[in-house]
């Protein structure tokens, strides 16, 4: 008996130590549950851990049976893997969400104005707010988009803003993901799974629903259709194919929206429109939600060897006969080098101060900054400007001496390819482990839909969680997991 108590105290001490460095979203102190989690925590404390363990296994079997998998590049053997799902939800209070969503909306609005400006008059460059060379020498900038206004003047139809938290009121935007953000299918499936496993939780807590996302996505995309599109607008999703890491999501969304899932070889230009090959001949498409990168979109206009795109689609686009979502060339706005200018960009176009904070960013292309970064590698996170998915990055505090030295060489060889950021003390949310609860670092990706009729943000989003103790890398390709994310009603 005594022993048990000792070990419990020891556990608490551990949490206390953890608490000193990280903001835990559930437990502000070992015995003090934060407000949004109170109802949940008291439910959890009454659960039999072995029942939860069984539920957790059931969820995994469900995911595997339904084929919710993702492919990992460079892993031949495990072609399809499951993203681990943790059954403890991440809970966001209504007032926190209100602030977050206002900040996200402001940011996304500014990004769309920035894109329009960059591809038209470039006022922001003339005003000297963003340096010209940052745009001119950037691969993400598409000269083909100059002077072209997409239908509805919407550039980023779908955005997945990555947000981290470091304290009660401290939210930072980590990345803007204005190209083709993925993960929304996990947001939807995680909720579905929670509803099936623990229906009682949803009668005890008033959680804002997320299930309207596919319907809203379809409506939002249709609202961006070309002007000459008839009363019935045909939407389709363009996927690179079943070997793509996010293929499950592509087919999931097509299914949920009730639209065709097409590949490049299903499409061609017919009478100045994009059309898909059906069993009854070619049928016109008005809006193409493409999950294919810019470079591969049109072999006639971009990479000639691309097999994934549609030859001539850019010409149809220029003629105003197809909506491409997101518009080609949006990468110039979520580039990691542009990122550091976003607060200035927001102020330039909206006249407001940015509501959400940016993480301090060092642009390694600047010689003095590079020196500073090299001197402080052990404390910094260094990322490739165009990288994504957590590939090719250095997490200084977690890296060995040798890894740091190797990275320093890469950095010296091509400094402008990198940016560095201080390591944030990311907030934690507990995950379910053998011993009960254990804090792990999380981030959040809310999903934003943009159309001429407004900006719609699904309450919550995808919470990614680093499953390794102390790890800050939450990417699914690097062993991260996900959680259901709740935004509570008022």
């Amino acid at each position, binding site marked *: 008996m005594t022993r048990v108590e000792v070990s419990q105290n020891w556990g608490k001490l551990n949490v206390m130590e953890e608490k000193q460095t990280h903001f835990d979203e559930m437990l502000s102190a070992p015995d003090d549950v934060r407000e949004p989690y109170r109802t949940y925590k008291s439910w959890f404390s009454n659960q039999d851990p072995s029942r939860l363990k069984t539920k957790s296994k059931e969820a995994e079997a469900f995911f595997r049976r*339904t084929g919710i998998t993702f492919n990992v590049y460079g892993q031949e053997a495990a072609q399809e893997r499951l993203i681990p799902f943790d059954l403890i939800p991440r809970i966001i209070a209504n007032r926190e969400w209100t602030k977050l969503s206002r900040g996200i909306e402001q940011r996304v609005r500014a990004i769309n104005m920035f894109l329009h400006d960059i591809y038209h008059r470039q006022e922001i460059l003339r005003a000297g707010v963003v340096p010209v060379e940052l745009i001119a020498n950037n691969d993400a900038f598409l000269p083909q988009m100059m002077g072209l206004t997409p239908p509805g003047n919407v550039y980023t139809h779908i955005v997945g803003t990555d947000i981290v938290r470091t304290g009660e009121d401290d939210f930072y935007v980590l990345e803007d993901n204005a190209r083709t953000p993925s993960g929304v299918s996990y947001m939807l499936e995680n909720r579905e799974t929670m509803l099936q496993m623990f229906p009682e939780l949803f009668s005890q807590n008033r959680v804002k629903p997320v299930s309207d996302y596919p319907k809203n996505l379809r409506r939002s995309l249709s609202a961006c259709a070309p002007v000459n599109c008839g009363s019935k607008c045909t939407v389709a999703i363009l996927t690179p194919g*079943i070997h793509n890491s996010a293929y499950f999501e592509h*087919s999931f969304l097509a*299914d949920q929206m009730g639209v*065709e899932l097409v*590949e490049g070889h299903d499409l061609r230009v017919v009478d100045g429109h994009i059309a898909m*090959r*059906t*069993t009854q*001949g070619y049928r016109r498409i008005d809006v193409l939600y493409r999950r294919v990168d810019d470079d591969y979109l049109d072999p006639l206009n971009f990479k000639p060897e691309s097999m994934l795109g549609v030859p001539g689609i850019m010409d149809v686009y220029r003629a105003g006969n197809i909506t491409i979502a997101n518009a080609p060339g949006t990468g110039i706005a979520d580039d990691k080098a542009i990122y550091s200018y976003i607060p200035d960009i927001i102020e330039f176009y909206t006249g407001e101060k940015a509501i959400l904070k940016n993480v301090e960013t060092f642009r390694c292309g600047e010689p003095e900054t590079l020196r500073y970064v090299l001197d402080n590698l052990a404390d910094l996170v260094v990322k490739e400007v165009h990288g994504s998915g957590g590939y090719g990055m250095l997490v200084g505090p977690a890296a060995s001496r040798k890894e740091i030295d190797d990275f320093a060489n890469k950095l010296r060889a091509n400094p402008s390819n990198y940016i560095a950021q201080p390591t944030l003390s990311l907030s934690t949310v507990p995950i379910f482990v053998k011993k009960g609860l254990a804090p792990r670092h999380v981030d959040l990706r809310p999903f934003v839909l943009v159309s001429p009729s407004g900006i719609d943000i699904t309450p919550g989003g995808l919470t990614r969680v680093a499953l390794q103790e102390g790890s800050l890398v939450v990417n699914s390709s690097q062993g991260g997991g996900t959680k259901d994310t709740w935004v509570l009603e008022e």
Partner: protein
Amino acid sequence: MLGKTAGCLYWMFRFLERSENTARLIEAGFRIALTRSNDTTSDWKSVVTTAGVRRGYDTVYDSYTAEHVVDYLLRDTSNPSSVMSSVSSARTNARMVRTALTTEVWEAVNENWMAMKDALKAPVPDTELPTLLGEIRRHSALVRGALHGTMLRNDIYDFAQIGTCLERADNTARIIDVKYYTLLPSASFVGSPLDNVQWETVLRSVSAHRSFRWLSEGDMTSSGIAEFLILDKRFPRSLYFTSGVIEENLSYLAKDYGERLACHDLIDAQLTKLRNHTIGSIFDEGLHQFISAFIRDNNSIGAQIEQDYRFNG
């Protein structure tokens, strides 16, 4: 519907049917091996021939033993028609058309694949074989059950049915083609023990040994069996029945789409030919010639459907 989707549905169900047929062929072969003490090389060889993978097999092995044949047909991923390859191909096609399938059908296909990956990861010992072969057929039946029980009767269903029955017709025809000599009426051999074993094998490889016995009331003759496999209107694996299903589903498509195409004429011709024959006239024409022509025409119908419904652009 996308042309590609139609193609994937068609192939998904061809491959599922193939996995089941291959399992049945192995079962029949295995049974011969059990009931006979002498050399079984020619029997295993005919199993490989019937499965249509002789050339591939000969590049891997130089003898026909139970162990090699069973492994090649069950597990070898270099053999595109092995059970493992067929089940994988069926699932790959299903993944590509997931939006066209109900959850039940998709899950049945996915579970089939998971079960086979697990069951076929190592060579299968003889003692496990009967259970495994039963599993293969059971999984295929689950997919078919989900298809019949949950899918709308629309063009999706039509392409699934067409794929299934083209593959099935091809399979039954190849079994007859390989074993046709045992089915030729020959007074001196009728009723000999050897014949009975061979006939039994043929019937077993289409899961018809029991139904045939019921229908023929115990009267086993070679021409009776041939008639049953080719012309029977009730047996779901006969050439007549399967061709009828293809014709039926193609005419639904013609009605739905408001368009008759070249493939409709081909299937009509195939059916008419079967209707105008009796087993006697088939033997007169030559069983082997008749079956060879059927296999060829069946393939052309498949190719024409691919073209008419724009599977590949």
